[in-house]
């Protein structure tokens, strides 16, 4: 673990140069979305349809979506860069660090980024009055898990793929998930096949659990299954990432 912390320190050193910008957008982003979607759009959505104010419905979904987005972004270009552009992974592998330390160190950094951004987001949700329970605090570790469940497989993809993959990744996976994984409307509105597909995504599981937490009525068993499912994705991602990093860096 100490070796992984050394790799983590590299990412923090890099982050120190840009943290102001990310904090600014982490504050601005929730304010804009909650105002437009929660307050603006919420005003024209009938409360009876959902059984709760639209703001209360959409806010925890947006929170989980931010976790996905940061998890995806931080494991795409930065990983590609550490292999192809500044080649920092090669520098690390000339030292006692091992491939597994590179993977863990980077994921620790992703966890940090997601943790900071979603904490700010949660504060904004509180300010908008859409938090109804102390259970809401549990959304932060949940969001970190959601972020990691994306960061694992995506960092594997970033290491493995030779060509441009990030455009299709964001256009055909991240954005559709954002639109259809139960953030803006219940997935029960989707046709049967798509609904089943939505249930299988880590994002829907994160959104659904986050919503139960902020509304203050989590179901223990359902929560457990959802967390276990996300952990499974995360574990699978770590496995994939180690394999892809090894394939690319140790030849």
């Amino acid at each position, binding site marked *: 673990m*100490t*070796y992984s912390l*050394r*790799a983590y*320190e*590299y990412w923090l*050193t*890099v982050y120190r*140069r840009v943290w102001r910008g990310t904090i600014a957008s982490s504050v601005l982003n929730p304010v804009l979305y909650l105002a437009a979607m929660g307050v603006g759009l919420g005003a024209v959505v009938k409360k009876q349809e959902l059984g709760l104010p639209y703001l209360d419905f959409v806010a925890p979904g947006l929170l989980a979506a931010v976790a996905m987005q940061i998890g995806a972004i931080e494991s795409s270009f930065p990983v590609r860069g550490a292999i192809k552009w*500044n*080649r*920092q992974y*090669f*520098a*690390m*592998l*000339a*030292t*006692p*660090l*091992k491939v597994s330390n590179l993977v863990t160190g980077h994921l620790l950094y992703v966890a940090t980024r997601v943790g900071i951004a979603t904490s700010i987001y949660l504060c904004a949700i509180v300010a908008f009055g859409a938090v109804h329970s102390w259970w809401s605090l549990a959304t932060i570790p949940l969001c970190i898990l959601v972020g990691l469940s994306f960061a694992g497989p995506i960092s594997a993809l970033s290491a493995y793929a030779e060509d441009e993959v990030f455009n299709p990744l964001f256009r055909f996976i991240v954005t559709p998930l954002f639109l259809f994984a139960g953030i803006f409307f219940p997935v029960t509105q989707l046709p049967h096949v798509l609904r089943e597909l939505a249930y299988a995504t880590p994002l829907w599981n994160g959104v659904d659990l986050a919503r139960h937490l902020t509304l203050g009525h989590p179901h223990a068993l359902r929560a457990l299954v959802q967390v276990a499912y996300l952990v499974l994705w995360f574990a699978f991602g770590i496995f994939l990432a180690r394999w892809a990093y090894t394939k690319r*860096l*140790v*030849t």
Partner: protein
Amino acid sequence: MAAGEALIHARGLTKQFGALRAVDGIDFDVPRGEAFGFLGPNGAGKSSTMRMIGCVSPPSGGTLRILGMDPVKQGSEIRARLGVVPQADTLDNELTVRENLIIYGRYFGLSRSEVRQRAEELLDFVQLSERADSKVEPLSGGMKRRLTIARALVNDPEIILLDEPTTGLDPQARHVVWDRLFRLKQRGVTLILTTHYMDEAEQLCDRLVVMDNGKFAAEGSPLDLIREYSTREVVELRFPGEAPTVDAGMFDGMVSRVEVLPDRLLFYTDDGDALVPHAHERLQPQSVLVRRSTLEDVFLRLTGRTLID
């Protein structure tokens, strides 16, 4: 030499990439304190060998022991005692010179205060103290190379691996790098380097191997190699058009070998000055040059090709 004494010990070392056998069963031992060079053209297998020694490329066959350890099982422990100067820079351009050194020292587990002090010493050693707080991006190629060398020294390594340390540098920058490497050698650090420059090999290496197609074509000190595979002197003849057809026998035993290059003829002889009038008389060359044999001539003899093509 017994395997126990050698810092690096290789027998039948092989690296296979698909159908390509990049390194084809090489044997060598490097004792402590030696400067050992791999000389050869691009694609000869030098970098593949270096990556195996750097424990980032598992051998496909044969034995490799570094500091008495197995690079596949104990890579991390070995790397803790190596300094690596890779062929392509792996500096972070967005960080400063000092930050690059510090983060690298941290990878080796140096404490913050330790690594700060070490960074100052190393920046001084490679003459980059004035640029300590500059980003890496705008530095010249020579400065980046020196920073990479400083970084490789941060853990006070027992062995330094240098993969083409001066490729792409201008002559002045190369001399600065050589000077620093020479000082390390004087301190007793073991240097392993690859190069395709003969002058670099002659300047720095106690012993070198000429590598071609994954194999060793010859091995020895630069002087031994020249003595064994070449004559004392070389007479180079240039012609305005195509060089005439010649053979070594034309000069009554004065010439032991002739190399025909596209633009010139090389006559290998022990007495260049004695040969010059004969060559002028018989071949009417445009120009004649008498020089000492170099490793380039050794390479030409061994492989039939010039080193940089």
